[in-house]
């Protein structure tokens, strides 16, 4: 770690102002930031500790949804009985992530903003456009088992590693922020994360100093909630592919289908066309395949991650079969 100054602002507003100073970084749970600071992948000169701000509540919203403060720990969201009963996909996704120890510390905002697990990003002696723009992408042509097959660019093929974000994407959550000038905004999760393009170092639409204060969940979605995480060991491993699904059946047909994917792209991946393919149809392998075709349109493997294409197809099939099984 490089030396840094440590600050503990007294309000959210002060936090945003402090975070806007060049070199400043907010620290929440610290489970991602410190991991990266130890390897000097991140080298903030100021750490802004927001942990003692009153942003740690889950409250009902007037619309019938929930508002989750950014400091609510991942395990507390997962354990909240309202989330368990009405947003099962979110609870399950959170419980699929990391370890209990990490989840007890990890926060809502920190989870959304966690950085990629790309091996080369983690090693500052290796080229990486995300870490050092213009230095090249070592993952292309290298080992890329965990890398993206959708929405990639010539600059970067990293994935966003979060499980929680995938569930939030399927639920159409909204990220609430405050900017250093005091203004607030609500950012739909669909537009929150960016694709790498030619600037993989810019991962979200947040502006300098803009601080997450909460994530809002719309009213609950009826139907079967599933979070399927495919990984290399039974627990405590990142997703190779994950599927967050909320499927509602009516009269033997798929009434509504919402599907978001993790492990495939620089952001949680959701394809409306795939959902439309399913809606109104009776479940069948052919219908599932058509949906998979739509999800995988334009998919491209980079060698060690080629398997993700058939794996996504098969996992989607399995999830749909499970969700539509009467």
């Amino acid at each position, binding site marked *: 770690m490089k*030396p840094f100054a*440590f600050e503990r602002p007294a309000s959210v507003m002060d936090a945003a102002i402090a975070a806007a100073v060049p070199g400043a970084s907010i620290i929440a749970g610290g489970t991602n930031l410190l991991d990266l600071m130890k390897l000097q992948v991140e080298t903030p000169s100021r750490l802004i500790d927001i*942990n003692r701000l009153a942003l740690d509540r889950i409250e009902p919203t007037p619309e019938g949804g929930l508002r989750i403060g950014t400091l609510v720990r991942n395990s507390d969201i997962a354990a909240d009985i309202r989330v368990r009963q009405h947003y099962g996909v979110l609870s399950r996704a959170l419980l699929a992530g990391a370890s209990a120890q990490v989840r*007890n510390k990890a926060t809502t905002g920190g989870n959304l903003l966690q950085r990629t697990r790309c091996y080369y990003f983690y090693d500052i002696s290796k080229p990486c456009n995300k870490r050092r723009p213009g230095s090249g992408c070592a993952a292309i042509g290298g080992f890329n088992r965990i890398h993206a097959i959708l929405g990639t660019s010539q600059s970067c093929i990293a994935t966003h590693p979060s499980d929680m974000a995938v569930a939030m994407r399927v639920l159409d959550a909204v990220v609430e922020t405050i900017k250093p000038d005091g203004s607030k905004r609500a950012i739909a999760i669909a537009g929150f994360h960016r694709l790498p393009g030619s600037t993989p170092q810019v991962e979200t639409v947040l502006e300098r100093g803009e601080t997450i204060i909460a994530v809002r969940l719309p009213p609950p979605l009826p139907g079967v909630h599933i979070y399927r995480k495919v990984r290399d060991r039974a627990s405590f491993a990142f997703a190779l592919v994950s599927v967050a699904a909320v499927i509602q059946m009516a009269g033997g047909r798929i009434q509504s289908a919402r599907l978001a994917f993790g492990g495939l792209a620089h952001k949680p991946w959701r394809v409306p066309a795939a959902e439309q393919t399913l809606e109104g149809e009776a479940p069948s392998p052919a219908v599932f395949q058509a949906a998979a075709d739509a999800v995988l349109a334009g998919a491209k493997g980079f060698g060690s991650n080629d398997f993700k294409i058939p794996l996504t197809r098969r996992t989607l099939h399995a999830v749909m079969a499970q969700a539509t099984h009467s």
Partner: protein
Amino acid sequence: MPVGRRAVLGTGTAAVFIAGVAPGPDAAAGETRGEATVATVTVELHVNGASHRLTLDPRTTLLDALREHLALTGSKKGCDHGQCGACTVLLDGRRINACLTLAVLHDGQPVTTIEGLADGETLHPLQAAFIEHDGFQCGYCTSGQICSAAGMLEESRAGMPSFVTADLAEPQPPLTDDEIRERMSGNICRCAAYPNIVAAIRKAAEIRA
């Protein structure tokens, strides 16, 4: 050894404290080798019921504060990146990885380590059960396993679900062996005492139930 610039850190949330300033190029200039200093912070750590006032480089992880400053070496460093669980301690009763947090973040908060679990000479039921069921070999993951298990049993009692909980809506999921295994998966044991650890946890859970 030269003393760094210090600032006292408040525990309230009402004020802004600048706890230290990183030495810019000027700060180091002119000083001879080994004498450049990093601004330090004063932190009050409450560990196992005792309070310790420490002057620390703010970079100090909670784990290093325990091991290197308080000589509480029971908490182990297996990876220093949240990947093994050897450093698991209880913060406000909840298990966390002490390696992935800074001591300064926990000013004033109660921390329990393996050294604080026993009641004098009387071992904590988990500690006794680990011995009885041979829940360890080399012992290096053991403090973490035991602290983690202590936190896990509390979580389970509080009704927290896990990834393998069949029905999330069930307010009090039963603690099956599969549940124990999933919930303990953040603690790697390379000696692979796993079956024995599960047996030990089950035993301790039954004692407390």
